[in-house]
């Protein structure tokens, strides 16, 4: 099969062998969960419950008031103990709903629903919105918004993203191997809503088994309109814009979104969540994460409740065999380093890594030697070296002209830099400064 690729990119060691053959295990529901009222890209939700109120598993506990927002559901049955700010893996501290589990066990509150073929596109969209589904690939963009493209920009191509290019992470790979039919049914629902002409599934060629299983299921289910494309294993292949470039050779315009060029990309995990919402009436209160890294005793692919704390997961995975130097939510390239174990799992959390000193590179950054490697690997083809130099000197006027806002923060430049410069960090500063001046100038 011909493999598809995008310009630029890097080849970090994959570390996927550590977890790729570990079947997904369900972690028992924790005694306590902490559910932040903002877990997605967009506006926060307003709580629907009060302290001391009893809640059931799957009950909506926070309501999305704005369009770009997504409702949040209880991930265990129990009592709301308090609503107050708590550690948030992305935002530092943020208001959260604390639920203490009770002995009644998980009693699920299932809404009535109809089989998908009898539902209209609008009804399906509503169902997905009610189930609180967001993009599970990492950015956590509300799914129903993506499924409502503007009328003047029809979607002709639907892409299911099974690239999973971040090192260590294997949760999407496991999903494709364990639930291919459910994923494909989820994909069919998406297709029914947006009615595209073409449907592609993109999988990196280091996941041969996933490709085989998905292909087989596609054949068995008689889905002739779905085409599977094999992607070259290269980071960041799973980035939306890189995926579209590699698969269709189309470029998302700078500052635009995939629907500007008639594309819609959804992650395999999201497709599964959509399937579960539509066929089983299950809101998004749990997800699959990869737990890995040299410090954890038993690496795993786990199905965990949203709001479970990292400390619970560490306990379930047998604790540490050595003290981790860094705890990362997400993958090692784009994930966020955490300062505590008391941090909850969010809808967008794809993994937790407990990295040891050997796995990290803690060398101090040096001066730029202008080797040009960052420019070569940059998947959006901006010039990280010069952008970072401008940011270092706080010359925001120069930085602005070097397109910092196009940066997708994939980290390829920092990864490849021989003098270990914190290029992404500097570019983020330039982004902030540029966004500010653009706002000021109207």
């Amino acid at each position, binding site marked *: 099969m011909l493999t598809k690729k995008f310009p630029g990119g890097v080849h970090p060691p994959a570390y996927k062998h550590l977890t790729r053959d570990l079947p997904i295990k369900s972690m028992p529901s924790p005694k306590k969960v902490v559910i932040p009222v903002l877990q997605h890209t967009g506006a926060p939700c307003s709580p629907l419950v009060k302290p001391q109120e009893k809640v059931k598993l799957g009950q909506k506990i926070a309501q999305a008031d704005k369009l770009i927002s997504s409702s949040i559901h209880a991930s265990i049955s129990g009592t709301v103990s308090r609503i107050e700010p708590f550690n948030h893996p992305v935002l530092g501290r943020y208001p959260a709903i604390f639920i203490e589990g009770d002995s009644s066990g998980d009693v699920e509150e299932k809404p009535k629903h109809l089989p998908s073929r009898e539902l209209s596109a609008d009804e399906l969209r509503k169902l997905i919105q009610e189930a609180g589904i967001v993009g599970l690939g990492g950015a956590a963009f509300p799914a129903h918004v993506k499924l409502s493209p503007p009328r003047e920009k029809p979607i002709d191509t639907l892409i299911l993203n099974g690239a999973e290019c971040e090192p260590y992470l294997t949760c999407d790979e496991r999903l494709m191997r364990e639930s291919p039919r459910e994923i494909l049914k989820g994909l069919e629902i998406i297709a029914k809503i947006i009615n595209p002409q073409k449907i592609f599934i993109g999988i990196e060629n280091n996941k041969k088994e996933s490709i085989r299983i998905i292909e087989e299921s596609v054949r068995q289910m008689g889905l002739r309109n779905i085409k599977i494309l094999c992607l070259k294993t290269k980071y960041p292949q799973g980035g939306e814009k890189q995926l579209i470039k590699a698969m269709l050779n189309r470029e998302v315009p700078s500052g635009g979104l995939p629907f500007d060029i008639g594309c819609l990309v959804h992650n395999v995990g999201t497709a599964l969540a959509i399937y579960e919402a539509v066929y089983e009436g299950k809101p998004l209160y749990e997800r699959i994460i990869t737990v890995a890294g040299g410090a954890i005793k038993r690496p795993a692919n786990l199905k965990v409740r949203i709001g479970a704390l990292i400390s619970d997961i560490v306990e379930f995975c047998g604790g540490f065999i050595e003290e*981790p130097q860094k705890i990362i939510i997400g993958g090692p390239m784009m994930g966020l380093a955490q300062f505590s174990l008391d941090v909850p799992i969010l809808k967008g959390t794809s993994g937790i890594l407990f990295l040891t000193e050997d796995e990290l590179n803690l060398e101090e950054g040096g001066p730029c030697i202008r080797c040009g490697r960052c420019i070569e690997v940059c998947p959006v083809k901006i010039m990280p070296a010069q952008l970072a130099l401008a940011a270092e000197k706080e010359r925001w006027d120069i930085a602005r002209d070097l397109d910092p806002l196009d940066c997708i923060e994939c980290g390829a430049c920092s990864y490849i830099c021989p003098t270990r410069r914190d290029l992404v960090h500097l570019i983020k500063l330039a982004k902030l400064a540029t966004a500010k001046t653009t706002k000021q100038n109207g």
Partner: protein
Amino acid sequence: MDRLIVSSSPHIKAKDSCSRIMWAVVAALIPTGVAGVFIFGLSALKVITVSVLTALLTEGIIQKLRRKKLTTLDGSALITGILLAYNLSPDVPLWLPAAGAFFAIAIGKQAFGGLGYNIFNPALAGRAFLLASWPTHMTRWSNPRWQVDALTTATPLAILKEKLPQNVPSYWQLLMGERGGCIGEVCILAILAGALFLLCKGYIRWHTPFTFVFTAGLSSWVFMGEGLFKGDWLFFILTGGLFLGAFFMATDYVTTPLTKKGQIIFGIGCGVLTFLIRKFGGYPEGVSYSILIMNAATPIIDRYTKTRKLGLVKH
């Protein structure tokens, strides 16, 4: 769990570090040095040693004075020391490489802010300084040690330019280094061996050296003969310091353009300038000045060779 490190992503880094690349360049320069010592004898080794030691010492002392982190052994000062020596005749008095290496590091590199900030290739800056200050020492050459005639000779380019009554060496002799010249420029074969290693490792790109040599060869073929398209291009590219310059000095990261497009422009510029200096200039050789001039043009080349960002739509 109170000692967790919190820093910006990414959390993993590629293996190739700055000093790893620099030391690879040092390794790639070794065959050329061995050939130089073999051809010219121990005097060449002395020149290399003095140049390298002075470069390292100067770098260390200045970093100490500037209260900067000591990075003397990251390989970069070592490369400067080696390259400067390679650009000298084996017969120079030993204070000459010392003065040159001091100038290269102190003025050529550290005065601009150290590694990464210098505009000119430090080794070439050192050489230019020596050539301006002590021209007689810089233009006295000796033959390979097994050739019995005269201790002093001229480089093949000078023989041609000044129409000296000596035989010019054959292409084979030029390739193997059997001729008068600088320590590191004579044995093309050794230079190419080192360059091939760096190209295979991906530590240098082909864009500058190939366009440099190609442009120089092409322009000499067209204009250096009696009548158009009759120039001896092979002689032209095999003589002087063209290969040493193209593969080891025009590929210096710091002082050359960032993008491939820029590097091609840089190479073409070097080739044309080398030809112009050799044909019309006062010196028989023009490689080092052509690189220095293009070093000065690098910021402006960078400005006009920005990458085309993804998703750039025409309005």
